[in-house]
């Protein structure tokens, strides 16, 4: 009995010894280079080791039968191999494949510039938007330092690749924002309504964007709002243009913030002489409320509402007789609010919902006449994302947007008020898939459908883009798409029987991004069809409007950014070449539009001086001459302004005031005092000598100074 027990025990020991298997081998990459420090192990066991300096490894295991060997190392795709273990030593030669995903991955970059803190392979950081000289913390002004944009100094809006400003749309968390710019006087540039501090992600697409976004012929500015703030904070800003105050209260899963600001340029205008004859300097006040609530591990409810009221008045040349002036007064009232909810449904589905409302009222006095415009929009949006696998994502969504516009034009000489209005319901839907075919190749393909109840027309368009990684840090991308946009309200209020305007984009992009340097070059061609044409501006006769306009834009955009070569210096250079012509509006034939300049370039430099706790920044912008309409000239739009130059500088000094973190910011535009001319306006009728007198459209002042003190309490 005892012997038997002993035997059994010994047998057990012998068996456990005999079932030990040695697994050994060598790990290299595909070029034969040894991989040192790779993790080699049998799944779900303690048995494993790391490869040594020669790439060799060896370990024993008591496990037997079918087992899975796993080999992993940073920057390489994890390798899994089935082994049948039976005591015989196993010798393996293992080759790991590079994982391009980890080195930034293959990402579709055709047409888009992204600023984000979360993603690695982006060209900009959100902070760049607030520190760029000449930008004055205005998102569109900073985007204007990127290639693909044209400087149009008297508008201040985004003009992209030969497109008019209305062809660029702004989206916040997927919702289209009508009226993203402040209302301003003629020839006075407007600013974006939304502060860059609201967003932690900005994607500026100069074409070829996803089927998720519509109603933009040229470009989309896609903004993603902040998530829960990091902490409770109060901010105070004292600026030469007025004060502001902001408070953010943070709880575990929620936050609420409120801000108020008041702006008045009167004191500034009293100090710095202005080119324009202001009767009332621009004055504005506004407020904003924001809330965030984390409803669960993946659920987030966000909302904000923004209100502003502004007014200004100035004497502007009377276009019927330039020797006289007329008083123009503008009052604007804008309310915008939206709510978004995002959550995960199970493991694979994500739902995103949004609702928004906008109300914009412009009340303009033109001498004794008055124009009262009211525009409202309502939007509802539902998007689902289905994460089929790590490599395939499907998304689809539906949108409804109602736009309601009315204008009352009071003509004092006739004592009559003319009313025009329209309401449009736009229904849209999209489906898109993003597939990472291999670690070198990714593609996105989708389609978008839109139906306008006002136009009684629909359209369906394809959008395709793809990227191929040509090296560890370089890639080529391509994008193609058709883009539709409902004609402007300026025409729809007279003629409801128009069709969508249409553009087709082809974009080819090469990008290399390595060790904090980026180089990219992009060539594109855009064709325009069905642009609205008319005979005379603001004609109430619907028969005057057609969709017979067309045009094209093509060019090359080059971008270089370097944050490495010079210590504490970060700079980027953009250059855009644009060749464009279009026949739209009241053009007699194809011509280069007034907003297009052939060459645009910017150099942006930021220099951090640690000893002074100060960041200095400078931006130089150049644009070659733009066409303008000269009725004295034989040919239409053949005259050109001289080229545009601007050097803007700023300095941000980080300090403390009463132990509170403070930023003092000083900036000045056009330091060198270039006398920029944006175009000429001509009298509507010729003078006694038979020629049309004119005046030049200039900057509202040669330089703009700004001093602000921002305190965090």
């Amino acid at each position, binding site marked *: 009995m005892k012997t038997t027990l002993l035997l059994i025990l010994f047998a057990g020991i012998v068996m*456990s010894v005999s079932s030990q298997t040695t697994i050994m081998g060598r790990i290299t990459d595909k070029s034969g280079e040894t991989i040192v420090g790779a993790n080699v192990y049998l799944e779900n066991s303690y048995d494993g080791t790391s490869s040594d300096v020669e790439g060799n490894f060896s370990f024993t295991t008591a496990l037997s039968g079918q087992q899975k060997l796993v080999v992993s190392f940073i*920057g390489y795709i994890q390798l899994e191999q089935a082994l049948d273990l039976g005591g015989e030593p196993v010798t393996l030669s293992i080759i790991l494949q590079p994982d391009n995903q980890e080195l930034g991955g293959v990402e579709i970059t055709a047409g888009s510039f992204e600023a984000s803190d979360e993603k*690695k392979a982006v060209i900009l950081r959100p902070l760049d938007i607030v520190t760029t000289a000449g930008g004055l913390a205005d998102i569109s002004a900073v985007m204007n330092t990127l290639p693909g944009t044209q400087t149009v100094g008297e508008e201040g809006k985004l003009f992209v690749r030969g497109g008019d400003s209305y062809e660029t749309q702004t989206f916040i968390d997927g919702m289209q924002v009508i009226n993203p710019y402040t209302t301003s006087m003629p020839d006075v540039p407007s600013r974006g309504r939304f502060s860059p501090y609201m967003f932690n992600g900005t994607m500026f697409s100069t074409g070829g964007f996803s089927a998720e976004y519509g109603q933009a012929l040229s470009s989309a500015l896609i903004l993603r709002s902040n998530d829960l703030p990091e902490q409770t904070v109060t901010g105070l800003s004292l600026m030469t243009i007025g004060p502001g105050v902001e408070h953010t209260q943070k709880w575990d899963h929620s936050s609420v913030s409120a801000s108020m600001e008041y702006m008045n340029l009167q004191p500034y205008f009293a100090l710095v002489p202005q080119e324009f004859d202001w009767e009332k300097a621009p004055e504005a006040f506004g407020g904003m409320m924001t809330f965030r609530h984390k409803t669960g591990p993946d659920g987030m409810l966000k909302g904000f509402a923004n209100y502003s009221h502004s007014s200004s008045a100035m004497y502007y040349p009377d276009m019927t007789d330039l020797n006289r002036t007329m008083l123009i007064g503008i009052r604007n009232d804008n309310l915008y609010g939206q709510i978004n909810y995002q959550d995960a449904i199970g493991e694979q589905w994500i739902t995103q919902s949004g609702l928004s409302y906008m109300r914009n009222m412009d009340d303009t006095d033109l001498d004794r006449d008055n124009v009262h415009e009211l525009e409202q929009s309502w939007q509802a949006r539902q998007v689902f994302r289905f994460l089929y696998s790590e490599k395939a994502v499907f998304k689809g969504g539906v949108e409804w947007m109602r736009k309601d516009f009315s204008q009352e034009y009071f003509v004092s000489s006739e004592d009559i008020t003319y009313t025009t209005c329209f309401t449009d319901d736009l229904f849209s839907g999209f489906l898109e898939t993003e597939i990472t075919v291999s670690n070198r190749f990714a593609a996105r393909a989708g389609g978008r459908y839109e139906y306008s109840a006002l136009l009684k027309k629909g359209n369906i368009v394809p959008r395709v883009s793809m990227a191929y990684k040509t090296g560890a840090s370089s890639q080529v991308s391509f994008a193609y798409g058709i883009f539709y946009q409902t004609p402007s309200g300026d025409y729809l209020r007279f003629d409801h029987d128009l069709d969508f305007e249409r553009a087709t984009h082809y974009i080819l992009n090469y990008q290399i991004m390595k060790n904090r340097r980026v180089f990219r070059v992009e060539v594109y061609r855009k064709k325009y069809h069905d642009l609205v044409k008319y005979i005379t501006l603001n004609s109430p006769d619907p028969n005057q409007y057609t969709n017979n306009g067309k045009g094209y834009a093509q060019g090359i955009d080059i971008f270089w950014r370097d944050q490495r070569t010079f210590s504490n210096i970060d700079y980027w250079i953009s250059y855009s070449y644009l060749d464009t012509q279009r026949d739209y509006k009241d053009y007699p034939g194809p011509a280069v539009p007034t907003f297009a300049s052939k060459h645009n370039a910017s150099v942006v430099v930021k220099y951090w001086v640690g000893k002074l706790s100060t960041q200095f920044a400078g931006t130089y912008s150049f644009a070659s001459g733009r066409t303008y309409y000269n009725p004295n000239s034989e040919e239409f739009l053949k005259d050109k302004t001289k080229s545009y130059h601007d050097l803007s500088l700023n300095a941000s000094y980080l300090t403390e005031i009463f132990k509170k973190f403070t930023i003092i910011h000083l900036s000045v535009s056009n330091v060198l005092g270039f006398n920029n001319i944006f175009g000429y306006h001509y009298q509507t009728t010729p003078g006694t000598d038979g020629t049309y007198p004119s005046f030049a459209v200039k900057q509202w002042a040669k330089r703009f100074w700004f001093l602000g003190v921002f305190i965090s309490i």
Partner: protein
Amino acid sequence: MKALILTIALIVYSTAGFSQKDQYQMTMRTTIDKMYQAKTVEEYQLMANTFERMALAEKKEWIPSYYTAYCYIMMGFMAEKPDQIDPYLDLAQKHLDNALAIDSKEAELYVLQGMLHQARISVDFMGRGLVYSQKAQGALEEAVKMDPKNPRAYYLMGMNVYSTPKMYGGGPETALPLFRRAQENFELGETVGNDLMPTWGKEHNNQMLAECEPKN
């Protein structure tokens, strides 16, 4: 004879039948000790590999994932080229998330999250400094909320303040009370009951204290 059988039985039992828990404790203990001796990226890589294997085999323990993340953060601090830092830290975050999924109430994990955020700053001081030092502060405050006696949370808060320029609320003087508080907590004695818990930080905290103490 009976004694012999018993002895053999015991030997067999204790070698072959070593409970998995004991093996876990032993392997972890030796690897942790080795890890504190690591000085190069390569050495940390070996430790990270061992911890990762432990984490994969012990799916209910957060500690192996914690140390895997810790190793990758250290590798991030040591990386020579700026492009290498983020990939290490991304891996660290993956393992830390894994640990948080196992135990979301462990203060040490928030301490490590704070350190991970701090490590991100070195990639781009100008661009990331403000955002990531705030994120780090947020995570460390969370850790203190869960365990006011945690010394490493105060030590890293001290580091956060210390590396913030004096001009805006940072510098040695402001950091000093935090390093002191960390020292007090270190003196309270390290976590009782589980000798696998992290112990790092004390030595460097003492160095920082010496550096920040006003010199007469």
